[in-house]
């Protein structure tokens, strides 16, 4: 379970995040929805301890990220916005590097890598150097290395970016599988269809604030709209006007 409580973050004079709070529960998929520049990536970066919040706190399975960053990172599997691979290493070597840094034994590493390669259907690319991989192949490798330590919480920043329809479909399938395994799945996106198709809970962020939260139905009800897209437009629009005023 991931809890964000009153997160604030500014870069110089620019306020990126101004009071974001939400909860992502185990066995659910939580979507962080918002337009570009709304503060999604910064929020996630505070969750996975790459950045320190100016104020507010993050709890992962009850552990404070500010005071115990290394323990929190152990509990998280993270696919960040930056997902560069080591081009001169094979996919398997890339994953093995992270497994070693996670402190897995050789036995655990072999078992986990074999399982992930099978689940993500990457048998044919596992022992190729990642130089020249397609977007989808790169994403699979990055996901495998993020989940190699079998984390109970999974955070993904815009995971479908740059994927074709087929790859997007299989990624959705994979996220559902993670959910069914009882994990807490949190991902960010600016694409409406993404959340509508997948999420149990939606957190809408605009201009660094949470402007709506709940299931798709609850959000439609809140905005008095029939479709999620209309609701989203209405909520974002209201936030923009509020922000300008």
């Amino acid at each position, binding site marked *: 379970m991931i809890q964000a409580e009153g997160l604030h973050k500014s870069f110089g004079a620019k306020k990126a995040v101004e009071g974001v709070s939400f909860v992502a529960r185990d066995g659910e998929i939580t979507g962080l929805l918002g337009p570009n520049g709304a503060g999604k990536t910064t929020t996630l970066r505070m969750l996975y301890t790459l950045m320190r919040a100016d104020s507010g706190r993050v709890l992962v399975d009850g552990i404070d990220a500010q005071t115990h960053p290394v323990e929190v990172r152990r509990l998280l599997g993270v696919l960040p*916005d*930056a997902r560069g691979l080591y081009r001169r290493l094979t996919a398997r070597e890339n994953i093995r590097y992270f497994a070693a840094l996670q*402190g897995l034994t050789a036995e655990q590493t072999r078992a986990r890598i074999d399982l992930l390669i099978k689940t993500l259907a990457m048998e044919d690319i596992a022992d190729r150097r990642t130089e020249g991989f397609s977007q989808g192949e790169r994403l699979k490798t990055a996901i495998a290395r993020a989940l190699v330590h079998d984390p109970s919480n999974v955070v993904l920043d815009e995971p479908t970016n740059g994927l074709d329809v087929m790859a997007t479909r299989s990624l959705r399938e994979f996220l559902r599988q993670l959910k069914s395994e009882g994990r807490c799945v949190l991902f960010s996106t600016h694409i409406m269809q993404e959340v509508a198709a997948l999420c149990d809970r939606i957190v809408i962020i605009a201009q660094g604030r949470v402007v709506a939260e709940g299931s798709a139905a609850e959000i439609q009800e809140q905005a008095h709209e029939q479709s999620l897209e209309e609701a989203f437009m209405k909520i974002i629009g209201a936030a923009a006007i509020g922000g300008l005023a």
Partner: protein
Amino acid sequence: MRASLIVFIKECRESMRDRRVMLNALLLGPILGPVLFVVILRLTISHQLDRAEKPLPVVVIGAELAPNLIESLKQQGLEVLPPVPDVESAVRSQSIDLALRITKNYGADWQAGRPAMVELIYDSSAREVSSEAERLRGMLESYSRRNGAMRLLVRGLAPTLIAPVVVATRDQATPQGRGALLFAMLPYFLVLSALVGGMWLAIDSTAGERERQSLEPLLINPVRRDAILVGKMLATSAFSLTSLALSLVAFMIAGWFLPANKLGMTFNLSPTVIVTILPVMVPLVLLLVNLQILVTSQAKSAREAQTYLGLLQLVPIIPSVILSVLPIKAQNWMYTVPLMSQQLAVTKLLRGESLPVQPVALGFLITLVASLIAFWFCKRNYDSERLAIYG
């Protein structure tokens, strides 16, 4: 510690698959210095040999007035060039370097036992002419002395009468010492090879990783950032040291191809000396690697890092130039200055002298402390939030 080792192994493995890194660390870094060195040294040595042995062409005016003198000068290497009309202006316009004029009264004065005059015409501001004029003056003086002694003997006097003081020169430079003067630049080439050997890995493992967007995922692993930094630092140091060691071996081999013995020099770079130089250089390598990482972790892009590191390569030339231009005696305080300390120690070893243990040990410690300070600044950069974020 475990994490540092994992990072170290991965960085080494990845670099060994990178042709550019291998080329720099194992070929360019070690070979560049010795090759430049041999070429420059061969040129200077053969130049000096040429000048000492080759005939000295001089325009002679009135050669027929002093046949004995000219004959004696020819035996000493003089090459007589035919006279030209206006000698003075020819020398001023540098169309000829050096001229010798036998005065009209030479024969008569010689016969009468009066000082007979010859004129040396040259332009001392012109490059290299002065040394030729000195050589000709030396030839003339030895002819003069010889004939003076003969005249005294003829009159029944001992020639020693006109030499109340005798100067004997005893040059205390050992053959190695004379060699080391020419080899004053060698320590710089060694430092350069260490810098070149570590450069690509320093760039690649910080600025490069950030640019290829793999630094952020790496830092999300449950290990401390300074452990990752130590791993990268050790990997860079390993390449740097390897480059340095190979460079020493290359220098040893290059030494075989130097005509150093022609100048009466020996070049004392034996395997034993190499094994002594390496540990002396270790703290310096650590310092340089930490400075390289400091620069690359500060730079906004790999390209920018490359520019700064190129400039960093020029810094170690300063003590080399100071030591080779200023003939100052090695003072003990110089051993406390990182870089200068190691360059002095290497120079001493090349001269075949033993190292002054205390100053060298002090320099070792001070350089080690300096590299720890540089590491602390690297750590500060690594702990910064902005490190991983590109763009």
